[in-house]
């Protein structure tokens, strides 16, 4: 029986990997996700058949409650709120693994001694799981706007983190090596939860894409550790896959912001660098344009590249943007989208929002693909983006020096739809706004976009 169960687990693990492989193309991605779901179903079925079950009541209760909550959330969530949903779901994954570790601790602890192998994996699963759980709750709070997006960090808190981490190591080693004391274990859990809160609270709102990618990775690692505790390979494998995925995305996000992971986690970015006298200083003036003027420029262009940013997502203006794209294409204008990796609030977020508005994915380009096309483009239309189009990144003295940007300033005309001249997350002025070819179209993205659509429609 165990042989067949292990064989079925192997099939499940293979399907997880094969499913992820299908995600390499939008055409096959949906089937890939379904393969992974099938893999999960197989793993659950095998476990239920193979394990001797005393009572079904609580298992069925748990699955019913979880399915109801999960299905409701999946149906109701707005695409703009995907970062919040993924943020809180990371926490559930980590939390589940931590609870498994806690239960195994209770089971083993009665013997008086923790075997070193399971003991150390219990401590690791509990630590990573608890940090993921409380950290994700904070990330969710920041993304949903319940807690301040400013990084909360100072020397005292950094010192406190070090002390707490030291406690984790010492108490963990003590419990595994000497005495699995219940009080110490509870303290261990409390400190791990506190660490999660402090670590994520120290990360600024603009860096949340990195934070949730990292927490995503942790939730997988925690599941892997739970697999070590139970000696279950399918848990180890799928946990490792999630761990790898989260780490890759973390890396991509850090690169897109030209920051090291250490700088994101400990840097407290966003508090410094922004000084009032740097912003709007001097005699620089920005030219502004109204909807009618912008419509004329766009309507008589031959090629337009649209650069959507976070402001578009907040204003939910992606559907109106799609209308603009259709009108321009009806006039025979070539329209492309340039999407920066950190344009949304999580990796790939902007692509999902545009897909929701029926923008075909083959019209979306990332910075490397499209940057050398700006110089042959008549109009770059920037909607609610700032730092990712700031040419200051090419200035080695700037705080954003070296950050990969979209080279919109090479286009013949630049129209910037934005509420004001205020700086973006990086807190620095954007010289693009004051260039001769630039025009500011002030206003909130949605009404402005609607005005623009109306004006373009009236062109002949």
């Amino acid at each position, binding site marked *: 029986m165990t042989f067949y169960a292990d064989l079925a687990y192997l099939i499940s693990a293979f399907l997880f*990997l094969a499913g*992820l492989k299908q*995600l*390499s193309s*939008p*055409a096959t991605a949906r089937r*890939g996700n379904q393969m*992974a*779901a099938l893999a*999960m179903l197989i*793993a*659950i079925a095998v476990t239920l058949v193979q*394990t001797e079950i005393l*009572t079904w009541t*609580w*298992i069925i209760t*748990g699955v019913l*409650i*979880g*399915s109801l*909550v*999960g*299905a409701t*959330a999946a149906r109701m969530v707005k*695409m703009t709120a*995907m970062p919040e949903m*993924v943020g809180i779901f990371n926490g*559930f*994954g980590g939390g*589940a693994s931590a*609870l498994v570790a*806690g239960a195994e601790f209770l089971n083993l602890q009665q013997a008086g001694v923790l075997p070193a*192998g399971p003991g150390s994996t219990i401590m690791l699963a509990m630590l990573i799981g608890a940090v993921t759980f409380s950290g994700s709750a904070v990330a969710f709070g920041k993304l949903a706007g319940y807690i301040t997006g400013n990084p909360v960090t100072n020397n005292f808190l950094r010192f406190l983190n070090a002390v707490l981490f030291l406690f984790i190591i010492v108490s963990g080693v003590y419990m595994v090596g000497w005495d699995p004391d219940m009080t110490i274990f509870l303290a261990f859990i409390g400190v791990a939860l506190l660490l999660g809160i402090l670590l994520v609270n120290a990360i600024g709102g603009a860096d949340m894409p990195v934070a*949730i990618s990292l927490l*995503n990775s942790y939730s*997988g690692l*925690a*599941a892997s550790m*739970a*697999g*070590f*505790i139970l*000696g279950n390979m*399918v*848990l180890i*494998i*799928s*946990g490792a*896959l*999630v761990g790898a995925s*989260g780490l*890759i*995305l973390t890396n991509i996000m850090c690169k897109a912001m030209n920051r090291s992971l250490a700088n994101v986690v400990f840097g407290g970015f966003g508090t410094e660098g922004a000084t009032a006298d740097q912003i709007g200083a001097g005699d620089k003036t920005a030219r502004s344009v109204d909807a009618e003027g912008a419509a004329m420029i766009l309507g008589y262009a031959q090629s337009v590249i649209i650069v959507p940013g976070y402001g578009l997502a907040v204003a939910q203006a992606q559907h109106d943007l799609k209308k603009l794209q259709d009108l321009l294409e009806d006039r025979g204008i070539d329209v492309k989208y340039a999407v920066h*990796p950190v344009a*949304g609030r*999580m990796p*790939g977020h902007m692509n*999902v929002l545009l*897909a929701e508005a029926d923008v075909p994915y083959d019209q979306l380009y*990332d910075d490397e693909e499209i940057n050398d096309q700006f110089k042959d483009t008549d109009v770059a239309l920037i909607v609610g983006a700032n730092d990712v189009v700031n040419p200051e990144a090419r200035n080695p003295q700037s705080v954003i020096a070296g950050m990969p940007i979209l080279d919109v300033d090479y286009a013949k005309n630049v129209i910037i739809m934005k509420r004001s001249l205020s700086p973006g997350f990086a807190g620095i002025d954007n010289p693009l706004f004051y260039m001769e070819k630039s025009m500011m179209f002030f206003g909130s993205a949605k009404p402005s976009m609607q005005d623009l659509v109306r004006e373009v429609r009236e062109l002949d």
Partner: protein
Amino acid sequence: MESMPIMLVGLYVFILATLAGKEVITKVPPTLHTPLMSGANAISGIAIIGGLIISAKADMGDEPIVAILGLVAIIFATINVVGGFMVTDRMLEMFKKK
């Protein structure tokens, strides 16, 4: 030859799975990074297996704490599994129509 201890086998599996995952996931295009993440969310719900194993052997009367931990683990993990796969499917459906 003696067989390897299960911890060591686990470590082999963990390292190889991480490398295989890295190969496969590096090829996911930026367009699909959000569905990748929510799909990974669903997969990390694999911890449900742990919850099931715990719940199967814990009796609410004898060991109420273990049983409750198992129950909550199942609830958390199921939210991940069901919510994660469903919302990913919802997103990927939008990518399919052209």
